């Protein structure tokens, strides 16, 4: 049964652009003002994925550790960069902070998963390292974006509360504790919600892909569970690190709001 799946023809792929035209039509009719973004997003995703297909194909054949490491690092950099796009809140060092939070929050869970739970061999095996890292990084990035947005708007909305707390003798951690908590929560809720509906409403991408590829559904469930749990762990740790880093960057050395 392996590899016995329906191949999508180039015409089939081309036809899928019709879906995006539908999105653009809705955006146009509802005057959402995002038609241009939808257009660019469609082109970008198309080109990026096609390119990624060729790159992965090359890396799989080359089978060298440095290609795997390079690709994973590039993913972190792009994810850090994209995490604050479209968000008005831009505290200083936002790129570095986002990168560090994502990297530190996910690298240890990934190492544990690859080498303790899955025993990937050779250690850089791109077939496993690249797609799984990509899933973890992209989901963590979504959490980071939501968290950043929440933190930024709350610092603005609750500035009085923060300053009142400072005024009562609170340090910057105590003054922003509530905002930190609600921001982590906001970033984590989609992941937690996804866990709740897993298997009932949602058959996640990886599992679907494996099933279509002919893998035994029970085997693909195991993979998916591992993925969902590692995404939860990476997102939670990354968000925790992020708010601690961001919190420091919105105050000066004397603990005054910038």
């Amino acid at each position, binding site marked *: 049964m392996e590899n016995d799946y329906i191949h999508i023809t180039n015409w089939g792929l081309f036809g899928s652009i019709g879906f995006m035209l539908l999105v653009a039509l809705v955006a146009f009719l509802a005057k959402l003002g995002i038609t241009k973004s939808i257009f660019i997003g469609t082109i970008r995703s198309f080109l990026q994925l096609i390119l990624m297909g060729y790159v992965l194909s090359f890396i799989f054949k080359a089978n060298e550790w440095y290609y795997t490491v390079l690709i994973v690092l590039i993913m972190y950099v792009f994810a850090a960069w994209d995490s604050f796009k479209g968000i008005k809140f831009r505290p200083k060092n936002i790129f570095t902070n986002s990168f560090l939070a994502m990297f530190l929050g996910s690298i240890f869970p990934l190492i544990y998963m690859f080498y303790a739970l899955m025993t990937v061999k050779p250690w850089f095996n791109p077939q496993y390292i690249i797609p799984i890292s990509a899933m973890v990084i992209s989901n963590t990035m979504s959490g980071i974006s939501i968290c950043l947005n929440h933190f930024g708007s709350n610092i603005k909305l609750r500035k009085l509360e923060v*300053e009142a*707390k400072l*005024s009562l*003798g609170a340090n910057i951690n105590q003054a922003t504790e509530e905002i930190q908590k609600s921001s982590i929560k906001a970033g984590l809720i989609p992941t937690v919600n996804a866990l709740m509906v897993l298997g009932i409403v949602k058959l996640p991408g990886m599992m679907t892909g494996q099933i279509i590829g002919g893998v035994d559904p029970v085997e693909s469930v195991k993979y998916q569970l591992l993925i969902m749990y590692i995404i939860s762990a990476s997102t939670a740790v990354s968000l925790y690190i992020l708010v601690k880093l961001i919190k420091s960057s919105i105050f000066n050395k*004397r603990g005054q709001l910038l």
Partner: protein
Amino acid sequence: MSLKIENINLLYDKNMVLKNINIDFPLEKIHVLLGSSGAGKSSFLRLLNALSEPHSGSIKLGNMLYAETHPLEIRKRVGMVFQKPALFEGSVYENLIWGLKIQKKTINESEIRKKLISLDLPLEYLEKDIENLSVGEQQRVCIVRTLLVDPEIILFDEPVSALDPLNAYNVIELIKKINLEYKKTIFLVSHIVESAVEIADTISVFKQGEIVFYGSKEDYLSNYKE
């Protein structure tokens, strides 16, 4: 002891918000700051509360030089009540003890009750959720909360601007009481000039970032002309 302000200049977005402020404020008095909006009064209070830093000049409270002291230490001696009631989620009691917990100060409940009574806040308010209080009551809770951490100076930044005339008058009276009973130095910015001037010991008039008049209430009433 005094609060000595020397050559203070404050820049905000390349605009001079405060220019060359030099005043030696005696402690345990009520200092009323007057002036139109944007004249620099609130910016001045923020400097005193170490919520922002001057561009140049120095502030000295007794022997404590602001520039050499961590803002956390400054704010233990100088508290602030803001224009809008800045209460936190929870009950009145939780709000009242917030600053005490942060500053690791212990105070027994009877002390809190005593302060509430002396400042005309009914005891049954303690368990009330802050959402269920009127704006005037919320502002009173803010005042008591600041008083409980026991700073030497309390800064009031337009504390009555959101209140109706009767509540505003009551809060001004409360401020006077705090000065008299608890010997706190008060800085009061208020747009209700008459009642603020009435309780003042000194008046400072701000105009475009400068203090164009500083003197006693009597001096202000007899000599100051716009």
